Each structure stands twice: as structure tokens, then as C-alpha cells.
């Protein structure tokens, strides 16, 4: 089992998706003149992206070891489904009352929920550890 490759995959995806989220956050905040930094800031983005990408990497390593490349396919679908379902939480999210224009929050947070899965899936072809495990 190639844990090194798997964790590299997770970390690279985490860095890329964090960077994308931070850039998007900056552009969005300037474009719409909003400030959601009390609930969505760089440390939060780094933490959640890293956690998400490492979880995906670990599950990839474990399940492809057991069931091979087909497991990767099912997991890809699972990652996308989980990302999609997680956006429901944003619609119910209660922002602090001193934050103005909460109606603009979903436009910022929803795309970010897809960044870790996007980053992870984009780099998957470069890490063929499930074939090694076969």
C-alpha cells in the first residue's frame, strides 16, 4: 500500500483547493463589497480543505487497496455527492447579526464546498497508487 503517494495526493489537492478558495474569497468580497471573514477566513479555509482532501486520500488508499480501481470510481461519485449535499447546510447557516448582506453568503460558500473534491479529482490521474496496490 502506497501511503506516501496517497498523502501527497491529499496534500497537493488541499493546497490547490485552499489557494482557489482564498483567491475566490478575495475576488468575491471585493466585487460585492462584503466581509464574511468572521465566519469564512484563511485559517478556516486551510483547515477544512486540508481535512477534506486528506480524508479523501485516506479513503482512496484504504478502499482501492481492498477493491481496486472500481472503488475509486464509486468514491469519486461519493465525494461529489457529499460536496453537493453539504451545500444544504449553507442555506440553513445562521450568520452573526452584525454581518450585513447574508443573502450573498451562499454565493461565496457554495462554490468553495466543491473545491476540495475538484482539486482531488483533478490530480487523481497523476497518482496511480491504486494500480500499484492491485
Amino acid at each position, binding site marked *: 500500500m502506497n501511503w506516501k503517494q496517497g498523502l501527497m495526493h491529499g496534500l497537493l489537492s488541499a493546497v490547490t483547493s485552499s489557494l482557489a478558495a482564498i483567491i475566490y474569497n478575495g475576488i468575491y468580497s471585493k466585487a460585492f463589497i462584503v466581509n464574511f471573514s468572521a465566519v469564512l477566513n484563511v485559517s478556516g479555509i486551510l483547515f477544512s480543505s486540508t481535512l477534506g482532501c486528506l480524508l479523501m486520500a485516506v479513503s482512496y488508499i484504504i478502499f482501492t487497496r481492498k477493491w481496486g480501481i472500481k472503488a475509486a470510481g464509486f468514491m469519486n461519485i461519493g465525494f461529489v455527492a457529499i460536496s453537493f449535499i453539504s451545500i444544504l447546510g449553507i*442555506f*440553513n*447557516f*445562521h*450568520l*452573526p*447579526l452584525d*454581518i*450585513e*448582506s*447574508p*443573502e*450573498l*453568503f*451562499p454565493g461565496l460558500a457554495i462554490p468553495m464546498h466543491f473545491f476540495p473534491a475538484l482539486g482531488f479529482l483533478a490530480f487523481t490521474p497523476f497518482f496511480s497508487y491504486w494500480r500499484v496496490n492491485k
Partner: protein
Amino acid sequence: MRKFRIAALGVVAFSALAFNTFNTQWKVDETNYSVKFSTAKFDGIFKGLKTNIVFDENNPSTARIEASIDAESINTGNGLRNKHARQGLETSKYPQIRFVSTSVSGRAGQFETTGKLTIKEVTKEIRFPFQFVRKRTTEGLFTGKFSIKPADYNVKKSGTPEEFTIQLNIPVKQ
């Protein structure tokens, strides 16, 4: 002629003193006030408070309190809920919520006002206790709390909580 001038000055001075004593005009500290509401399901705030407060704690019966708030400014911390609330209040058609006192009574910092609250052009009489604390000679703080039923004001959009408790915290200065 000199006596007349002295008398006139006396009248002016007395009037000014009387005005200050019995008809103190207060202006809201616009950066620090809060008009909060809470329900069983969620809470929120209003902004855009405009007031005309004439109040002397030693002579509350002469007080007159007029206040309006921007209904569109409602913020529950959730964009979808804000939209729902604005639809319920029909803020584009009825942009303001107004209160005008008809009487004020009480003493020693504890007061009670009766007045007319208008929401969606439906006016109902309400009565609620409030407190006034003079912070310095020219600064004070009004606090108060009351409850209303949205249905009484024709706010009947589905999902609207049965009762809202409004909490006022209004620092003022002369």
C-alpha cells in the same frame, strides 16, 4: 425701559430653563443602538432607526416618543429567511414600522409607555415598560422589551412565528 429689558431677559432665561428641564430632546447614538427581536425559531435585528424623543425623567407625562425603523433592514443572519421576512412585511409597499407614544408614566428610572405601533399600515395600541438611565448630564440609555403577534398586523406569511419579542437598547444624547 430697563426694567422691561430685565423682565424680558428673565422670561427668556426661564423659558430656556423650563424647556431644558421639561422638554429634553434626545438624539439616538446611531452607532451603538440595537433593535433586536427574538422568536422561538430565530432572532434578528433592525437598522435605520429614526426618532424624535422628548423626554424628561422627572416629568415623564410631558414626554413624546416617536420612532420609525426601516423594515427592509431586517436581518436574521440568513439570506433566505431575510427574503421571507421582507415578503411577510411587504417592505417594498410598507417600508417603515412606526411607533408614536400617547402617554408615558413612571418614575425612578422605571417607566411605562402606551402608544400606537404601525406595521403594514395596521395600527394597534401597545403598552410596555422601559427604563431610562442618565449616564452623564447629556447622555442616557433607554432600554425596553415588548412582545407583538405578527398576525395582529396582517403579517400572515406561512412560517412566520406566532410571537416576536422586541428588545430595545437605545443610547441617546442631547
